[in-house]
């Protein structure tokens, strides 16, 4: 089935934010996988709130995103927004592990949302 909201045609994007309070992570990743912009410099995503867990199972399957961003060479900031009691540093370290070496650790940021 075809997405009714598609960003596939947004080929000039330099900044993309997907703020999502309750959709499944799969929906986000399906959308992210459509990124074809050669100019994307800023990407901000909201992590789903999976309670207190800070292990791999608390994060969505980010393999598709890692694969997509491998090609986005000019990405200058990859920001994850999350809401939950897990220490920010712990989430940041897990994300840096997941994205290494496709995305430089220095451009990955974690900020707390609402």
């Amino acid at each position: 089935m075809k997405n009714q909201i598609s960003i596939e045609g947004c080929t000039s994007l330099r900044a993309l934010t997907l703020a999502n309070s309750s959709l499944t992570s799969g929906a986000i990743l399906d959308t992210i996988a459509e990124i074809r912009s050669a100019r994307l410099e800023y990407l901000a995503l909201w992590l789903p709130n999976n309670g207190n867990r800070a292990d791999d199972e608390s994060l969505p399957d980010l393999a598709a995103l890692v694969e997509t961003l491998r090609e986005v060479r000019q990405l200058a900031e990859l920001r994850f927004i999350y809401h939950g009691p897990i220490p920010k540093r712990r989430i940041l370290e897990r994300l840096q592990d997941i994205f290494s070496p496709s995305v430089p650790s220095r451009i990955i940021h974690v900020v707390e949302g609402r």
Partner: protein
Amino acid sequence: MQALQSLPSTILQTVIHLAYDNSDWHTLCSCTLVSKSWRAASRNSVYREISIGSEARLEEFEGLLATDPTITSLVHSLVLRLPPDNPDFTNYSLVAKIPRTLSTLLTRLYTIRVIGLRTVHENNEPIDHFIVALSGFAAFATVQSLALYNCTMDTSLLSLFSTSLPAIRELSIEFHHIPRHPPGLIPDSQVPSPQRPLLKTLKLDFGLIFSPAAPAILDWLISTPSRDTLRSVTLTVRISDAEAVGRFLSEVGPVLEELELRFEDYFGLPLETASKPLSCGTQLTK
């Protein structure tokens, strides 16, 4: 304290504006009472945004501008806050007076924010008055940004309002409602220019309450030249608006440089975002 007094006025203005942070009136009022130099440095923040909610307040402000004409160049933002308990048909009088009174005085006005404007009435006569009143905003030649919050206005009036502002580049609409007006509301003499608006920035947020406003406004924007000029879009997407948002992005997507999608749903139920088509015929996922 003496060191603070010797600060250049521009730095003092910046410090005071940061302390005010667009909302902390208590701090700003305190700053104006420190000394003459602090009071002078506070003026930019005090008069940056003016809020008017009644004709009496408008007259009061007009009197202030007559007393001290230097204030006219300090006002960058005008907020028209219409009282919710006013009968609808009395609002147009204030709306009509705003451009007549202020357009020639506020020479550095960049933003107009309208809160609570309702153009609903069973009798069409007040609507006709609104058409004239909103057309009058064409006199605000410097205004680049229009923000509507909790307004009730159909797309033909919205189109008239936004295209009336000759320099408009930003449009923000939050919690908008669409009334039911008969077609052909706008007389031919008042039909907005097809060359406008030329928006660069768009922000739409209709909240969680169902309203046909999102599809109506998105479809209207696609029909305007803004389809080619938009560069930055922020949309709060409800499941009921998915089809209209998809249609909108397929049209303007290639020219966009910044996109923010905020997904919302009514109840947070998996059914609302499931892969299978919903009864309303919309879906967000594959």
